[in-house]
């Protein structure tokens, strides 16, 4: 008998604001412990929260992108529990009236199938601090730098039925929040955190008891963790056991999940409206003002890249994998007067992407700008350099040795297009290889490649390969 898998995700996305959601302290990552925690973040007596208005527009933006209802009146509540990283003894969050209501998102699986995943809601809340182990031997410290960092908790409907769907959804959301510019998406630094609720059932039966997999910081591990959790639950039930509602941690080293806390430990959070904060009122005008700033979203951009630029689906997907990548590409096309869009696309998807990956850089941090790369592509297009020489020029540009023109000039890489010079090289190579010439004339036409190689080598790669080819064919007739 088969099993049906039910998965819902809760995604915590840290919003890209300079200061915290309720205080003026910086949200920058990686500062010395507690150096970015002000009296409000520390929960000192008499301190009061003041909402950072920047989070409202960012939330509306996500809501619009998810085709969701925007909460015209959203309310902050207090979620009460004690933990050392929670300074006030309550988390300020939104419970009954979230800022973003029901929405949806379409995902596409590797095999091309598409599926709509419901988004239950997204609400604003403050992040907690962190426990620090090992700084003081035998004691646990608390770092409150992260306390008060704005979060949007994006809750999906339980619409996913495999680990692959869950990861496709998480990736799509990850791409979306970065496109919208509301979250930097850095999973290693915890800017984008995915909790998965996983349960299994027999088809047609009510929902099974779920387990929650928390704080897994890569898509690959999320997929593995969900898969082994599904297996664990099925094996457990088939061997006569029952799944208990609990939070489980994924252990990447041993590829297992283990229980962190069960429902028996669950708190009664005693939610109630926070009397220190007024309800957030959003008008239609506010929503329209945000809509006017809405960037082109990934799906629309991909479709346009295919229709407008004639790119393959694959190239379009790579070139729209981030907003920065897509902007870089569009600049490149403009700066090269759209003379050879395919060439631009090839350079972006191969040489440029490879260099970024090798050095672990984002597009924004690339040492070669769109203008710089365009300067090089223009030289390929006007036959000043060959594609092969271009790789050499690109590497030099990447190392900061100058513009394409400066490098071509300094290294003498300009392509030889002078017919006389090329003819001399052709004649020389043919004269030095009489037996190969014989073989060619006897019908071994593949020898042509050998001659081209020899001529290019003799020219230091600078001869125009097209011209070399033409001349060879003529001379060998």
């Amino acid at each position, binding site marked *: 008998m088969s099993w049906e898998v039910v998965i819902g995700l809760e995604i915590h996305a840290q919003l890209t604001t300079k200061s915290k959601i309720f205080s003026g302290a910086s949200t920058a990552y990686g500062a010395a412990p507690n150096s970015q925690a002000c009296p409000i973040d520390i929960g000192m007596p008499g301190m009061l929260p003041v909402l950072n208005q920047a989070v409202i527009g960012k939330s509306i933006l996500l809501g619009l992108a998810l085709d969701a209802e925007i909460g015209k009146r959203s309310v902050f509540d207090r979620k009460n529990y004690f933990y*050392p990283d929670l*300074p*006030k003894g309550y988390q300020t969050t939104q419970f009954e009236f979230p800022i973003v209501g029901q929405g949806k998102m379409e995902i596409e699986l590797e095999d091309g199938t598409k599926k709509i995943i419901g988004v239950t809601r997204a609400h604003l809340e403050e992040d907690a601090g962190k426990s620090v182990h090992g700084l003081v031997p035998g004691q646990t410290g608390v770092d409150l730098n992260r306390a008060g960092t704005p979060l949007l908790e994006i809750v999906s409907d339980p619409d996913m039925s495999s680990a692959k769907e869950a990861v496709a959804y998480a990736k799509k959301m990850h791409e979306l929040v970065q496109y919208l510019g509301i979250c930097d998406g850095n999973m290693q630094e915890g800017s984008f955190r995915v909790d998965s609720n996983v349960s299994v059932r027999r088809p047609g039966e009510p929902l099974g008891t779920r387990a929650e997999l928390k704080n897994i910081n890569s898509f690959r591990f999320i997929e593995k963790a969900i898969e082994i959790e599904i297996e664990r639950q099925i094996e457990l039930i088939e061997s006569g056991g029952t799944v208990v509602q609990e939070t489980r941690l994924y252990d990447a080293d041993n590829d297992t999940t283990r229980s962190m806390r069960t429902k028996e430990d669950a708190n009664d959070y005693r939610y109630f409206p926070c009397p220190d904060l007024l309800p957030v009122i959003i008008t239609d005008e506010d929503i329209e003002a945000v809509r006017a700033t809405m960037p082109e979203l990934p799906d629309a951009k991909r479709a346009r890249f295919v229709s407008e630029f004639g790119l393959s689906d694959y190239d379009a997907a790579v070139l729209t994998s981030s907003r920065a990548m897509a902007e870089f590409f569009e600049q490149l096309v403009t700066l090269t007067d759209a003379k050879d869009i395919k060439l631009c696309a090839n350079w972006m998807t191969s040489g440029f992407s490879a260099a970024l990956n090798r050095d672990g850089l984002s597009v924004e941090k690339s040492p070669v700008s769109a203008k710089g790369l365009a300067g090089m592509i223009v030289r390929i297009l006007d036959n000043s350099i060959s594609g092969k020489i271009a790789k050499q020029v690109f590497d030099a540009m990447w190392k900061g040795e100058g513009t394409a023109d400066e490098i071509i000039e300094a290294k003498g890489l300009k392509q030889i297009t002078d017919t006389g010079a090329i003819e001399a090289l052709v004649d020389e190579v043919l004269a030095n290889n009489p037996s190969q010439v014989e073989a060619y004339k006897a019908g071994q036409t593949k020898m042509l490649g050998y001659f081209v190689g020899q001529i290019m080598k003799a020219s230091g790669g600078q001869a125009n390969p097209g011209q070399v080819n033409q001349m060879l064919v003529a001379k060998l007739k």
Partner: protein
Amino acid sequence: MMHNLTIKQMSEKLRAGEFTSVQLTQHYLDRIDKFDAELNAYITVTPELAISMAEEADKRIAAGDAELLTGIPVAHKDIFCTDGVKTSCASKMLDNFIAPYDANVVTLLKKMGMPILGKTNMDEFAMGSSSESSYYGATKNPWDHKAVPGGSSGGAAAVIAAGLAPMATGTDTGGSIRQPASFCGITGIKPTYGAVSRFGIIAYASSFDQAGPMTRSAEDSAWMLNAMAGFDERDSTSLERETPDYTIELERSLKGLKIGVPAEYFGEGLDSEVSDVVKAAIAEIEALGAEVVEVHLPNKDLAVPSYYVLAPAEASANLSRFDGMRFGYRCEKPNDLEDLYKRSRSEGFGEEVKRRIMVGAYALSAGYYDAYYLKAQKLRRMVRDDFIKAFNECDVIMGPVAPTPAFNIGEKSDDQVSMYLSDLYTIPVNLAGLPALSVPAGFAQDRPVGLHIVGPYFSEAKLLNIGHQFQQVTDWHTKMPAQYQ
């Protein structure tokens, strides 16, 4: 004697050079030295800070750069955070707490150049009506040392009554300015919710807490409120409106004023002598040209039960930050995290505070939230609507502040419900967020009795006008207990 002057007179004499701020401040410090060991109205006295601030004030006065309140000392309730000076909230939990910041009110009064005499005693975390629940011991009523001064701002009321400060800050969550003002024979006003910033005031029940002045007279309160009130961007519930001049209406005639007197306020449980004093005071104001109309506040009995669900609910969360982690009391040798939480809080909080945290947590817990918290919110709206309706028929409402004069120390400390019911006239005002004034109106059983004047939102200037006009024809506010004269 300097301590019998009004604030305006003090200010004039400071500018005229008749005495300096240092002399004035020292006068109060000497009186504190002489009387406070017995009275126990201050938790902390700050003589060095006071004198150095007085010296600065004298320089400003000499340079002609003085405001009306420059050089006049003030005592802060120990719930206002003061940079560098202990702020205990009268709790063992914060016996070691020194804030690295000032409450907004403290900042404003510092800017005025008002030397800080010290921090006054109160009920622990402002939870109480007698100032007996202080970790530092009960404050005595200057009129009768056997009596409580009221609470929670009992220390503040006592220092004004005894002449140990010319002005004091108080906070009023369910009557904590007005009831001690009544018990100690002084003037105190709770402004409209949001008129004075709550920033830096240790929260008890955030949607009720409101700070205000405690002084000898309505005129003094008007000057002090001018300095305390105003929009503060650090408090989201602070009202974004221009701060009026609260002294501007002081001299206005009361001709044509419509006084609403709710019959419900003079029913069972009200001490007959208190009733007589209040009625006589209302008659006095009527004689100034005002008119009495009957109004009804039919839901007044819902106020106390509503308040004792909502205030503890808010408090239960507000006081969670006192967990032994980052500041305040931590128990000795905790076994583990849970032990640290439990013992730090059990040992650091007093009985009444623990009672209210438990009541509040209960009212918010799963399965009870609708029956308690939501129901109480409904009652709160009903009580507010009563007032709004009543103000269609009158300009202000008058009645008693408390059903009795000051009770004896120890008399009600074992009977919390009876203690809670002593706030039945003041609590409805906090539920509605309205402004209200208590002015001395006479004596019952030789203990002071206040007249309660409640107005519509933002009617502080009107309330102070009425108080001031009443004080032009009466002298209750000038009386001092014999030993403190």
